[in-house]
């Protein structure tokens, strides 16, 4: 265990580095130790917002509604209930009915890209996964689809620690607007009860109002954003590594073997965020109640320096999708889509010239690209 070196490994460009009470974890071994320790909890955002309401006289009704219906902000009974409600749609058995739909959509998305010589992978591949595959599955058809999709990502921003009061007010307004956009589910390609939202509405759930169910569906939809970003990151890794030949760095077969490794390094979420729930000593290191621990996912698997080696051995646990009771509900869906889309894309585009890449500088909690333009090389 290497908790003692926490402060010495904080050389990072993260806005959370070198801040009092913030610990950035960059090595795999320490990360796993913390993730397994129940004294580290997910941030109690609901409690925080209630205290903020009391202190300021402001109210954040939509924010509280979403936090109360988002598994990643909860612990305990409600968390377990929400996981049970959501997981059944996203385990392999629940996804089975969508199998041919997903495959057809992947083919269509790639075929469309093939009609262009130059295209932005975010627009042509990343976003359609969000809007053409996951929207019908979740069954959300807002009144203003474009604005809804843009604002849905505000939920991702909520994971960022220490949003300002004005930012929280804006997020509350945006979330209220998202709720107001959903009137009713529209039948999907099979029948009305196929979509997650339609199914949720028809379920008798004592502790969940209709608005709660809408919030759950929007949360699940918004949670797809990291999948789109992760796919874009994987493609970026595969094509940027061989700039001379413009060939993808691995073949389809190689990708199947390397998928888990790719996910570690290309995962869109930068951090797993935990809070120490009390004062305690851990391996000689003093942890104070309220200390924020941020585990850098990609760094922990990359091994940036000697003090943070690349993890080795047979028992390496993947936490690109979170860990333990907060393991990502959509991980099966993500792997289902990635494992089919990437090999098909590699087949369709064995060679691509990377024209422009630009990181999304405003996103502090996800490794996301704002631009990723590619071109087929001239023969």
């Amino acid at each position: 265990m290497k908790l003692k070196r926490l402060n010495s490994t904080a050389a990072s460009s993260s806005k959370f580095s070198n801040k009092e009470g913030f610990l950035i974890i960059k090595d795999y071994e320490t990360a796993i130790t913390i993730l397994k320790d129940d004294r580290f909890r997910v941030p109690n955002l609901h409690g925080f917002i209630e205290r903020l309401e009391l202190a300021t006289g402001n109210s954040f009704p939509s924010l509280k509604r979403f936090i109360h219906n988002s598994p990643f902000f909860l612990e305990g009974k409600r968390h377990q209930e929400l996981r049970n409600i959501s997981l059944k749609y996203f385990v392999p058995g629940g996804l089975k009915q969508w199998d041919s739909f997903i495959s057809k959509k992947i083919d269509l998305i790639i075929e469309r890209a093939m009609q262009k010589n130059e295209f932005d992978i975010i627009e042509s591949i990343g976003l359609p996964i969000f809007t053409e595959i996951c929207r019908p599955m979740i069954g959300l058809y807002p009144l203003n689809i474009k604005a809804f999709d843009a604002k849905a990502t505000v939920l991702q921003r909520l994971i960022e620690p220490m949003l300002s009061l004005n930012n929280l007010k804006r997020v509350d307004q945006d979330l209220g607007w998202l709720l107001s956009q959903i009137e009713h589910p529209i039948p999907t390609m099979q029948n009305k009860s196929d979509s997650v939202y339609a199914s949720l509405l028809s379920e008798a759930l004592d502790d969940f109002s209709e608005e709660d169910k809408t919030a759950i569906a929007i949360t699940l939809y918004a949670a797809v954003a990291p999948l789109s970003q992760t796919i874009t990151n994987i493609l970026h890794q595969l094509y940027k590594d061989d700039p001379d030949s413009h060939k993808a760095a691995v073949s389809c077969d190689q990708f199947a073997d390397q998928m888990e490794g790719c996910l570690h390094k290309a995962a869109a979420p930068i951090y797993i965020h935990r809070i120490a729930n009390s004062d305690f000593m851990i391996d000689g290191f003093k942890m104070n109640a309220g200390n924020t621990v941020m585990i850098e996912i990609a760094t922990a698997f990359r091994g940036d320096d000697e003090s943070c080696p690349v993890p080795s051995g047979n028992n390496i646990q993947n936490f690109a999708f979170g860990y333990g009771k907060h393991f990502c509900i959509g991980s099966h869906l993500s792997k289902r889509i990635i494992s089919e889309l990437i090999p098909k894309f590699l087949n369709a585009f064995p060679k691509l010239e990377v024209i422009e890449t630009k990181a999304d500088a405003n996103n502090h909690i996800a490794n996301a690209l704002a631009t990723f333009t590619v071109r087929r090389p001239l023969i």
Partner: protein
Amino acid sequence: MTTNKENIASFILEKAADLTKTDLSTINGDSLLANVGIDSLYAVLMCGFIEDEYELEVEPILMFEYKTANQVAQAVFEMIEEK
């Protein structure tokens, strides 16, 4: 009133004392804000006050980057100068 580092630091101290129910006379610009009891909630509130008073966008993480009212005041002053 002219905005300078000293009156920004005074503003921060007054708000910190008020929020944490600390006697203002017991703290000064070099007191550690963590010792006064500034936690994440107070950091958000403090930055809200600073935003309103100086018409700035201030991230609450600022309160954890700088440890004393004088240090925070210096950072806020630089933001005002850059505005």
